[in-house]
C-alpha cells in the first residue's frame, strides 16, 4: 500500500514537472552588440517574462562575426535561434517568419515601421511582418574638432565636398603632426554612401548592380588618398578578402582627423574618448549625386525554424510597442526606426557631445539618397559590398591596378548574382 502511494506521489510530481516544462515555452535570441543592445534586451526580456510567465526568453550574446558567418549556415541547415539580431536584412529573408498573425495590431507595425519593414521582405510585393529594426543607422563622418582648433582652421561647411574635406583634413594633419587626414571603415557599405554622393547610380535601368562612372570616380579618389598617405593604407590594404576592419582605434588615438563610420559608434565614442578631445559629427560631404551616407541598421527578426511562433510574435510585439521601443532607443543611444517614437523624440541620457552627434545623424536621414535606400533594401547588396572591400584592398596594397580592381569587382558581382539565381 505504502509502495503504491509512493508511486502515485512520484508519478504526480513527474506529471507536474512535465506540465510546467510544456507550459513554459523557451525562445532563444541570438544577439550581437554594438554597445549595450544585448544587455538592454536582456533587461526588457525580464519585464516581458514577468508579464508573460508562460514564456522564457534566453538572450545569447554572440560576436558579430557569428551573425555574419555562422548564422546563415545554421539557418540553411534548419537550425539556429528563434529570433536573431541581423544586419544582412534582405539576404536572409527566406528564413524569416511572418509574425502578422501573432501581433496585436498589424496596422501599428505598418504605420510605424513601414519604411523599414520592406527591407526584411523577400519580395517587393510581400506584405508580411518579419521583425523590427532595433536601430536605424546612418553612415557619416566623425571629426576631431580639437585638432581643427589646434590648427586654427575652420571646419568646412555643410555643403563641402569630399575634396574640400580631404584638403582641410590634410592641412590639419600637417599642422598638428597627426599621421593621417582621413580613414574609412573597411566596408563596401561605408564606401557606397560616398560613391553615391559622387554620382554612382549602383543599379542599371534593369535594376542590376553596375559599376558606373560615379562609382569609378570615387574609387579613383579613394585609391589616390590611400596611395598618397591621406589615409592609412593598413586599414583597407592591410587585410585580405572582404574582412571588415574599423578605424575606430585610429580615431580614438587621435591619429586621424576625419573618420567615416556611422551612428552606431556614438556610444563607443562617448565612453572611450570621453574628455580626451572634442569630437563632432558633420553632415555627409557632397558631390554631384548629393550629400548622402548609407542607411542601415540591425533588426530583430523572427525565424521560421522556431517551434513557438506565437511567443516569438508576442515578444517582438512587446519590444516594438511605443514605450518599450522608446526606452530601448534611449538606453542604447540609437536612432529610432519607429515613426511615432521618432516624432516624439527620444530622451537620450547621454553627454551633450553625443546628443549633438545624434542630432546630426537624425538630420542626415532626411538627406539620404533614394539609391542608398534601394541598395540597402536590395537582398544581394553584399554582392557589391564585399568585392568592393576585397578588390580595392588589393589595389591599395599594390597588387593590381585600380582599373583591374574595378573590372574584378564587376566580374565578382556577376558571378555571385548568377550563383544566387540558380
Amino acid at each position, binding site marked *: 500500500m505504502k509502495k503504491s502511494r509512493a508511486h502515485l506521489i512520484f508519478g504526480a510530481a513527474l506529471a507536474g514537472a512535465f506540465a510546467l516544462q510544456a507550459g513554459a515555452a523557451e525562445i532563444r535570441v541570438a544577439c550581437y552588440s554594438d554597445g549595450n543592445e544585448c544587455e538592454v534586451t536582456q533587461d526588457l526580456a525580464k519585464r516581458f517574462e514577468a508579464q508573460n510567465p508562460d514564456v522564457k526568453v534566453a538572450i545569447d550574446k554572440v560576436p558579430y562575426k557569428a551573425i555574419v558567418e555562422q548564422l546563415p549556415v545554421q539557418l540553411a541547415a534548419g537550425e539556429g535561434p528563434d529570433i536573431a539580431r541581423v544586419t544582412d536584412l534582405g539576404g536572409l529573408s527566406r528564413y524569416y517568419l511572418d509574425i502578422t498573425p501573432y501581433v496585436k495590431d498589424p496596422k501599428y507595425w505598418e504605420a510605424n515601421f513601414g519604411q523599414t519593414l520592406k527591407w526584411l521582405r523577400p519580395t517587393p510585393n510581400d506584405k508580411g511582418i518579419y521583425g523590427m529594426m532595433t536601430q536605424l543607422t546612418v553612415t557619416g563622418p566623425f571629426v576631431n574638432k580639437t585638432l581643427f582648433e589646434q590648427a586654427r582652421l575652420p571646419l568646412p561647411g555643410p555643403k563641402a565636398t569630399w575634396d574640400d574635406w580631404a584638403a582641410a583634413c590634410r592641412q590639419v594633419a600637417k599642422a598638428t603632426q597627426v599621421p593621417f587626414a582621413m580613414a574609412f571603415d573597411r566596408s563596401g557599405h561605408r564606401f557606397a554612401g560616398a560613391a553615391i554622393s559622387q554620382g554612382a547610380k549602383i543599379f542599371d535601368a534593369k535594376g542590376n548592380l553596375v559599376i558606373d562612372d560615379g562609382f569609378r570616380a570615387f574609387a579613383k579618389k579613394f585609391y589616390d588618398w590611400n596611395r598618397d598617405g591621406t589615409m592609412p593604407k593598413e586599414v583597407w590594404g592591410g587585410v585580405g*578578402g572582404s*574582412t571588415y576592419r574599423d578605424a575606430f582605434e585610429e580615431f580614438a588615438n587621435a591619429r586621424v582627423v576625419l573618420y567615416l563610420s556611422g551612428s552606431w559608434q556614438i556610444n563607443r565614442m562617448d565612453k572611450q574618448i570621453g574628455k580626451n578631445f572634442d569630437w563632432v559629427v558633420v553632415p555627409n560631404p557632397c558631390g554631384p549625386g548629393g550629400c548622402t551616407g548609407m542607411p542601415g541598421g540591425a533588426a530583430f527578426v523572427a525565424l521560421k525554424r522556431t517551434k513557438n511562433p506565437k511567443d516569438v510574435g508576442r515578444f517582438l510585439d512587446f519590444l516594438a510597442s511605443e514605450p518599450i521601443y522608446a526606452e530601448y532607443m534611449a538606453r542604447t543611444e540609437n536612432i529610432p526606426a519607429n515613426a511615432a517614437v521618432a516624432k516624439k523624440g527620444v530622451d537620450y541620457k547621454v553627454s551633450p557631445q553625443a546628443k549633438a552627434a545624434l542630432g546630426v545623424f537624425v538630420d542626415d536621414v532626411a538627406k539620404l539618397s533614394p539609391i542608398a535606400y534601394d541598395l540597402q533594401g536590395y537582398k*544581394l547588396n553584399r554582392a557589391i559590398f564585399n568585392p568592393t572591400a576585397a578588390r580595392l584592398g588589393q589595389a591599395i596594397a599594390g597588387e593590381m591596378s585600380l582599373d583591374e580592381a574595378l573590372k*574584378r569587382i564587376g566580374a565578382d558581382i556577376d558571378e555571385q548574382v548568377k*550563383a*544566387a539565381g540558380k
Partner: protein
Amino acid sequence: MARSGEAVAGSSAARSLPGALLGAVLNAAEWPMRGLQRLLGVPRIGWAFVAPNLVVLGLFTFLPIAIDFHYALTGGAQLYPTDRPFAGLENFRTLFECGSYLDPSTCRKDLFWRAVYNTAGFALAQVALMVLFSLITALVLNRKIIGRGFFRGVFFYPVLLSPVVVALVWKWILQREGLLNALLQGAGVTGPVWLDDPHWAFFWSVFVSIWAHMGFYTLILLAGLQAIPPDLYEAAEMDSASPWRRLWRITLPLLMPNLLVVLVLALIRAVQVFDEIFVLTGGGPGSATLFIVQVIYQTAFAEAIRLYGLAASASLVLAAALLVLTLVQLRISGQAARSRRRRQRG
C-alpha cells in the same frame, strides 16, 4: 572457453580484487561472445571487433568525403545537398580557367591561384627552415648544457598555446606602435609597419609559424637523438673523427627516420596553414598572405553568396595535392630504408 576464463580467474590474479573483477568481466562476456561466434563463424568474428571503429571512421571521414564530392559536382548557393543542381565538372573548370597558370591575374579565380602560389612558397620556406631550426635546437638541447630542462620547456611552450593567442601576441608586437617598433625607436631606428608591407608580412607569417610549431618537431628529433647508441660516438671519438664527420656519418643517417616524419608532418601542416595567419594578417596586405584554406573558408562561409561547390572543389584539389606529396615522401622514405638495409647487409 569457459575453462580458460576460469583459469584466468583462478590464477594468482584472482587473489586480488582487480583479478576477481577481471574474471567476472570475462565470465560475463563469455556468452555473448559464444553467440557471436556461432552467428558469424570464427574467421569472420574479427569484423565484429573492428565494426565500431569502422562506423566512426565511415561517419566522420568517408561520409564527409563523399559529401564533399557531391558539393564539388553541384552548383548554386543552396546548402541542402538535394536542393543543389548537378553541375558536373563546372566548378573545377571555373577553378582552372586561366590565361596562364604562371600569372594569377589572368585566371578567373585569381585569388585561388594567388593562394596556390603563396601556399607553395610558404610551404617551401617554412618546412625547410623549420626542419633546419628544429634540428639545430634538438642538437643543442641534446648536449649537457646548463639549464637543459628549462630550455627544453621554453622551446616546447609555444606549442601549448592556441593559434589565436600566438597570432594576437605577435600582432601586438608587430603593429605600427607595437613592441618591436618601440624597441627600434629606442635604438633610434624607425621601423616599418611590418604587416603592411607584402614582403615583411610574408616573412613574419613564416617566422611566427616556425616559432609556434618548432617545439613539437624539436621534441621528435630529440627523441631520435637520444635513441642513438652512445657507444657509436665513443668509437668515433677513439678514431679521432671530427664533430662535423660524426654529425654527417652517425647522427644524420641514424636520425633520418625521424627527419622524414618531421618533414611529412611539417609539409602537411604547412599546406593546411590557416588559423594563426588568418588572425595575424587576415590574408593581407592585399592577398600577400592568402593561403588555400583561407580561400576555401571564405568562398564557403564568408562571402555574400556562399559558393559551397567551388569551395568543395578547391578542397578536393588541396586533398589531391596532399595525397601526391605524401605518396612521394613515402616512396622516398621507402627507398631510403631499402638502401640502408642493403648497405647494412653489404
